[in-house]
């Protein structure tokens, strides 16, 4: 019996020792949460390259729908669960979460070349001068139009046309009998859907979300002019059911050849010029967003970025991954493997300086111009207290923006007037700001 116990003990000790040794040498595993889009999927495919270069790290991927990702990531971060080591967040979250101490600052030391990152993008992802998320790809908004249709209508589109001119072109191109609509714009309610577009448009009409005392300004004449113009334009020359269209719906319409113009995210340029998914790939022209009274804030600025939650247990490995995925070398790698038209854009100056990229991407110049002209810290004609072009980077904005989006979508579908919509949106925003203690 004694001998048996002794043997058992010896085995147990040696197994435990072996297991401890194994776990000491086993790889660190990091979990990356991301949205499903082309660039992110590409990153997932290229991960083995990272793992090869960093043998001690294994990467696990969680791809989620955007809304679910936001919810999961917020839950994870607010509860400190540490479920994710790297998370894909946007320009809206990065400064807010950075300020709250929810994110670790991005390690930009050594050969990361932080100065190469486009200044407006770096600014939008920073709080108090510290970058809390590394940009994976960035975007602004611009006009994409059908060169053939515009030319046939005897019209012309240039950078920074006036909204009146855009309306004239839409009228000239509009031909519903042939299934072609003058202009396609976002109408689906949501702070990141119709309100991203609407805010940029309103900025160019001289509007702002809040005055210097954080009082909502939705009932001002600038907002009324902008929203009335938008509703009128889409009602006359837009496709039917515009109030339920967002990026993907408009992309489908444009690629099918049903839109004369489309003003949306610059990332769309790579889709509409891709013959594999667009019927009009060789007929698309690009121009800078239109404006009304000011060019300030006329086109938005957004970036999908990789952030590291403060609660992660694998900070070192997570930093290594983030640095790799947002580096110049990664962009080179994608260029070599998949062609230069497929590289993630809108993040680094060096990408736009690369002759191979310039040759492959017909939209490169227009995109860079749009991104560089957007300044999140100065996007309104009248002074405003917030950062962000198509949003205000305060936690309350999600709810305020979504309510306003629902009202404006309602005005577009004809269930209420523009005045009613803006009044309700303003009242709701006022209540939320009051409750949050801004005044």
């Amino acid at each position, binding site marked *: 019996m004694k001998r048996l116990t002794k043997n058992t003990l010896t085995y147990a000790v040696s197994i435990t020792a072996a297991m401890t040794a194994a776990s000491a040498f086993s790889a660190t595993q990091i979990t990356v*949460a991301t949205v499903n889009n082309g660039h992110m999927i590409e990153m997932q495919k290229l991960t083995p390259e990272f793992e090869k270069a960093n043998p001690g790290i294994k990467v696990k991927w969680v791809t989620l729908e955007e809304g679910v990702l936001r919810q999961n990531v917020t839950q994870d971060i607010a509860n400190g669960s540490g479920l994710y080591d790297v998370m894909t967040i946007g320009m809206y979250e990065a400064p807010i979460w950075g300020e709250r101490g929810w994110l670790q600052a991005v390690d930009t030391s050594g050969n990361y070349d932080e100065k190469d990152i486009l200044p407006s993008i770096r600014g939008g992802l920073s709080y108090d001068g510290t970058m809390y998320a590394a940009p994976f790809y960035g975007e602004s908004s611009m006009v994409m139009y059908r060169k053939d249709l515009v030319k046939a209508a005897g019209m012309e589109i240039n950078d920074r046309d006036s909204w009146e001119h855009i309306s004239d072109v839409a009228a000239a191109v509009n031909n519903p009998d042939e299934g072609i609509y003058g202009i396609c714009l976002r109408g689906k309610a949501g702070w990141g859907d119709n309100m991203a577009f609407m805010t940029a448009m309103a900025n160019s009409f001289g509007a702002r979300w809040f005055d210097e005392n954080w009082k909502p300004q939705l009932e001002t004449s600038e907002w009324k002019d902008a929203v009335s113009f938008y509703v009128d334009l889409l009602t006359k020359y837009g496709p039917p059911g515009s109030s339920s269209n967002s990026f993907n719906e408009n992309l489908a319409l444009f690629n099918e050849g049903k839109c004369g113009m489309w003003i949306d995210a610059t990332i769309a340029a790579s889709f509409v010029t891709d013959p594999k998914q667009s019927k009009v790939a060789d007929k698309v022209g690009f121009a800078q967003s239109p404006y009304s009274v000011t060019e300030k804030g006329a086109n938005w600025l957004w970036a999908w970025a990789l952030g590291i939650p403060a609660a992660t247990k694998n900070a070192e490995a997570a930093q290594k991954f983030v640095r790799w995925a947002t580096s110049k070398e990664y962009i080179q790698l994608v260029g070599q493997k998949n062609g230069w038209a497929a590289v993630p854009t809108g993040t680094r100056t060096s990408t736009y300086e690369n002759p191979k990229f310039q040759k492959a991407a017909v939209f490169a110049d227009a995109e860079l111009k749009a991104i560089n002209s957007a300044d999140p810290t100065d996007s309104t004609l009248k002074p405003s207290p917030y950062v962000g072009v198509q949003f205000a980077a305060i936690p309350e904005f999600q709810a305020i923006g979504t309510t306003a989006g629902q009202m404006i979508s309602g005005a577009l579908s004809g269930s209420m007037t523009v005045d009613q919509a803006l009044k309700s949106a303003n009242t709701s925003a006022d209540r939320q700001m009051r409750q949050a203690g801004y005044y």
Partner: protein
Amino acid sequence: MTLNQQRKLKTILTGLFAWTVALVLFFPIFWMFITSFKTELQAISVPPSLFFEPTLDNFRIVQERSDYLHHAWNSVVTSFGSTIIALIIAIPAAYSMAFFPGKRTKDILLWMLSTKMLPAVGVLVPIYILCRNYGLLDSKTALVIIFTLMNLPIIVWMLFSYFKDLPKEILEAARMDGATPWDEVVKVVLPLSVGAISSTALLSIVLCWNEAFWSLNLTASDAAPLTAMIASYSSPEGLFWAKLSAASTLACAPIVIFGWFCQKQLVQGLTFGAVK
């Protein structure tokens, strides 16, 4: 019109109506199935095309990008696991409530059902925090527990209504022959209720298989079932309908096939009483 003709017409009309309803119900699934064989451009084309050159590309992409078998295994473990546990709890519960009802049995049953009326999101935060504290986030154990609790009221109700219709005399006869309560359940009630139990189990499995709210909120990668895999194909920027349809077809396939095989039990359980 003779009585015979009237009867014939009635049969034809009923058949026509049934077919229409069945086709309307089946159409979305059919559309999803054929969309999964289209290219992204064909998937968005207006008017939609019924005849096209089918491609298996979407299935290839889904297979390349997601570990289908991993997700499918998680779905199997969570839905079958939770259904078995729920049945182990529900059968004795329904038995005692059906054959030995107390003063408050009806209230207990109603109370159990009332828990289903609470929107799931109402308890998301406490359950999330509990899972975090017990280290159950992204684990199949958490999903099995939640699914068991989620379906328990329905299973108890279904079995209760079925057991209630069993003639008490059969049990009395068994008791006269010296059967213990255990024998009564195992040797009398269960063999008489195979149809009801299988249809209840199948319903529970289907409900677990399709459950998305808790799966998406409590899992990340290790325990993510097929519903989480489908959700990963929705895209904020880019066309994804064909790929999403392929992922959905792959996710639905096992349960549809399983349901097909169990059709007999399902129909029997749902339409026949105990002794008729």
